[in-house]
């Protein structure tokens, strides 16, 4: 096929680029202790929480941003970021969807998330985070009947202080890294899920995040706890409006799985990636970690990443419990000037622990993508097993695809396998499809979706459809 034809197709626009005009309650840019006190007071937090934040801030001041990733971006000016932005009338939050600002609902409509429909038809409870504060929570009642707690983390701090004290920061310590320390100091909201012993959460839980106000960093913090034999499937979707400046997103997600618990955490991330010249876009520095504390516990991370200018993200599993299982299924697509350094860590501590990693990376345009993964088998992880499959697909000759899989194996009874391939979409595959009358663009989408199939089939049904659509939008014309 003619390559200029392919080049032409590398034009695409961000379909979710619009700004909702809601008056925000935003504090001026800058970060010091007074900002942290402001955030804590604004959220009506107890004193111990403020102490926790201040301690994190002190540690952050002594830390340095990590530089080992295969990423290239200017230094972030943390004093130029505004650390709090909440929709107006925080004291007077809507109690039902009818009370939600219609403009907000309209925003969700544009994102393709018809909130009521989704909630009513799909039986999904949506804890929508608009900028930093949780605006509405649905299905709370049904959940509470099952004994499941699903609320904003701000509410949880006030309503379930014992659980928060016990678990917050227990998987990702405050000062785990530069971005977690920053998050611990200034996080404004996020979700909290608690599924008690023996309970299977009656519905899939979902949160949509958006970054809206200009120059606003978004720092959510999510904590999910599954007690013995409890199960939950959690969906996280993210988009952000189009802006010229880069915005920072530094989130922390902690998952705790006790004996026989199962947590499935799915993400579709479509933050604004910047324009084709690399202007604007989200800097996404996220720390996600699961602690499989109990025997036979299982955590499955599934992610479809198509957005952000910079992605730095390694959802990980600490496989502590005997026979615990960790899974990571990932599709990452980069186009334009996007850069992504993403992967996972599987830390095998307990006996008989198993992990599976399937990573599919698609690079197009001028983007750079790296898979970075660690499989560590500790001395006590007798019989531990890991299988890693990590494939890259290149579209066009100006992009890069890299693989950095670390394997640290300290147990002779462990079995670790890693396979990786890098290839491009075959000209012969494209020709075959076109010779059957299928347009080039459809053929590319078909082939790319086929390439990602192993991961898509791990996604909850409704997400899978969305993920495919998103992939097609992202790759619109990215044929090389």
């Amino acid at each position: 096929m003619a390559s200029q034809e392919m080049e032409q197709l590398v034009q695409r626009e961000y379909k979710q680029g619009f700004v909702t005009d809601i008056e925000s309650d935003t504090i001026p840019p800058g970060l010091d202790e007074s900002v942290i006190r402001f955030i804590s007071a604004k959220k009506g937090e107890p004193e111990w929480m403020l102490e926790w934040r201040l301690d994190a801030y002190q540690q952050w001041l002594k830390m340095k941003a990590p530089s080992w990733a295969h990423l290239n971006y200017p230094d972030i000016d943390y004093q130029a970021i505004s650390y709090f932005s909440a929709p107006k009338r925080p004291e007077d939050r809507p109690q039902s969807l009818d009370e939600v600002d219609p403009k907000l609902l309209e925003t969700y409509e544009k994102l393709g998330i018809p909130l009521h429909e989704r909630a009513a038809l799909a039986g999904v409870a949506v804890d929508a985070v608009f900028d930093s504060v949780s605006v509405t929570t649905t299905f709370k009642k049904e959940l509470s009947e099952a004994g499941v707690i699903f609320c904003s983390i701000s509410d949880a701090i006030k309503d379930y202080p014992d659980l928060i004290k016990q678990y917050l920061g227990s998987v990702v310590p405050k000062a785990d890294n530069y971005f977690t320390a920053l998050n611990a100091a200034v996080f404004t909201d996020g979700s909290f899920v608690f599924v008690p012993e023996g309970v299977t959460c009656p519905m899939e839980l979902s949160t949509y995040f958006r970054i809206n106000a200009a120059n606003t960093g978004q720092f959510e913090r999510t904590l999910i706890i599954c007690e013995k034999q409890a199960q939950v499937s959690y969906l996280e979707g993210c988009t952000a409006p189009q802006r010229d400046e880069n915005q920072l997103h530094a989130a922390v997600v902690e998952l705790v799985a006790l004996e026989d618990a199962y947590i499935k955490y799915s993400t579709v991330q479509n933050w604004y990636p910047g324009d084709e010249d690399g202007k604007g876009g989200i800097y996404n520095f996220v720390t996600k970690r699961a602690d499989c504390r109990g025997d036979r516990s299982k955590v499955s991370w599934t992610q479809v990443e198509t957005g952000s200018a910079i992605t730095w993200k390694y959802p990980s599993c600490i496989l502590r419990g005997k026979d615990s299982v960790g899974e990571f299924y990932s599709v990452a697509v980069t186009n334009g000037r996007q850069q992504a350094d993403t992967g996972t860590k599987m830390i095998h501590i307990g006996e008989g622990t198993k992990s599976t990693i399937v990573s599919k990376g698609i690079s197009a345009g001028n983007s750079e993508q790296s898979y970075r993964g660690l499989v560590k088998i500790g001395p006590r992880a007798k019989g531990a097993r890991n299988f890693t499959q990590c494939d890259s697909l290149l579209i066009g000759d100006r992009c890069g695809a890299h693989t950095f899989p670390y394997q640290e194996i300290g147990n002779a009874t462990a079995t670790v396998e890693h396979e990786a391939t890098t290839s491009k979409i075959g000209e012969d595959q494209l020709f075959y499809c076109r010779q059957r009358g299928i347009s080039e663009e459809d053929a590319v989408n078909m082939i790319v979706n086929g390439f990602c199939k192993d991961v898509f089939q791990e996604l909850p049904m409704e997400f899978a459809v969305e993920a495919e659509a998103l992939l097609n939008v992202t790759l619109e014309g990215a044929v090389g």
Partner: protein
Amino acid sequence: MTALATAPVPGSEAFTSEFAARKPRFSADPSWMAARRQAGIARFEALGLPTRKVEAWKYTDTQSLGRQAYQLADDATLSSAVMDELALAIDAYRLVFVDGLYNAELSDVAGLPDTVRVVPLSHAILHQPEVVGGSLNRLTGIDFTPFVALNSAFTEEGAVIQVGPRTVLDKPVYALFISRAAVDGQPVTMSHPRLLMQLGSRAEASVIEHHIGETGATNFTNLVAEVMLERGAVLNHYKLGEAATGETHIASVQVEQPRDSQYRSVNLNTGGGLVRNDIVCDLNGNNAHARLDGLFFGRDRQHVDTHTLVNHNEALTFSDENYKGILADRARGVFNGRVLVKRDSQKIEAHQNNANLLLSDRAEINTKPELEIYADDVKCSHGTTTGQLDEGAVFALRARGIDEQTARGLLTLAFANEVMTGLGIDAIAERIERSVAGRLPSRFHLDELVDLSVELAGGTVAVARDEDFA
């Protein structure tokens, strides 16, 4: 920052003091050599020994090297009986170095064709500067690694191997490096050999680099090899590492490959306490092919680290890599294989495989096969597996009357088979077999037995993929 620059880098004094003390030794240097030496020591002083914070040294700690005193050897005396015991029994053009110094009596390069030069480096520096002046340091520079800088400062001996265009060498060149047992109370003997291999267009040669230590040797050997091939040249570079367990061996190999050239590295290591090999191939012309095979076998507390890097700088270049690691006791292996495909290097193929066998609970492997790709029309793959011996296969052999130890030895050997077959030089294969599996009866039978046992056990010797994994 200035304060930092003037502060001595920890670990460098052990070497810089010996350098200062040995100034007179290098007084015969031609001025160009003296200048390179100075640049080398200055560079090393600035860098110091690498710490584990440096990605390339993440799993290998060299800081302890800075905590002992060193000396350069003053003589190369060794009886021919000792040499015969240690050397490979092969017909080859032989250069022998003892504790890094050239031993003319033990060397034999008689019968070399006119178009081939095999001389000790010291000789070339003094008498044939035109032969080495331009090429020495050309590939490695002085800042390739801190150890290359250190080698540049101290190097005084090594082998210069030059094969003229279209010459096909009839016998291998055999560079034998012997470390003598340490004398109590003396500083550690160190040497910084340099190998310079240059093959003219369409020349073909095999070079065997053999490092072996007497029991009780504690040498620090820091070797640099520069391999320059011209168009269509073919080089087989064997390296057999049998240093004593008290020795430290560090080597940096840099290979330059133009169009149609072939470089094959066979890197076999069974010895040494701390061993690190860096191999870098630059594929600079169409149809250049690098093949890197390796086997490392570690026991006790041996630490064996191999870093390879293949730069596909041009379109239509090819690389294949196959490394096997076997680790017993508390041995630790590190394998880092990196393939880098430059922008516009289209239609390249790069394949890499690393399989490891852990024979003990306390053995450890850290492996990282890296792909860095900036072109789209490429076929690249890498795979690693780590596992243990198939107990079913062990049982099948024992059921045929073979004792357990031999059975395990055989299966371990079978694991290494891919690297061993096609090795081309029996004397080397036998050495490896002996060290991996102990003394075994005739080879021929055993291959069949191994095949049989694998068949009986219904699986491959290396770990097989499990369908219901996870």
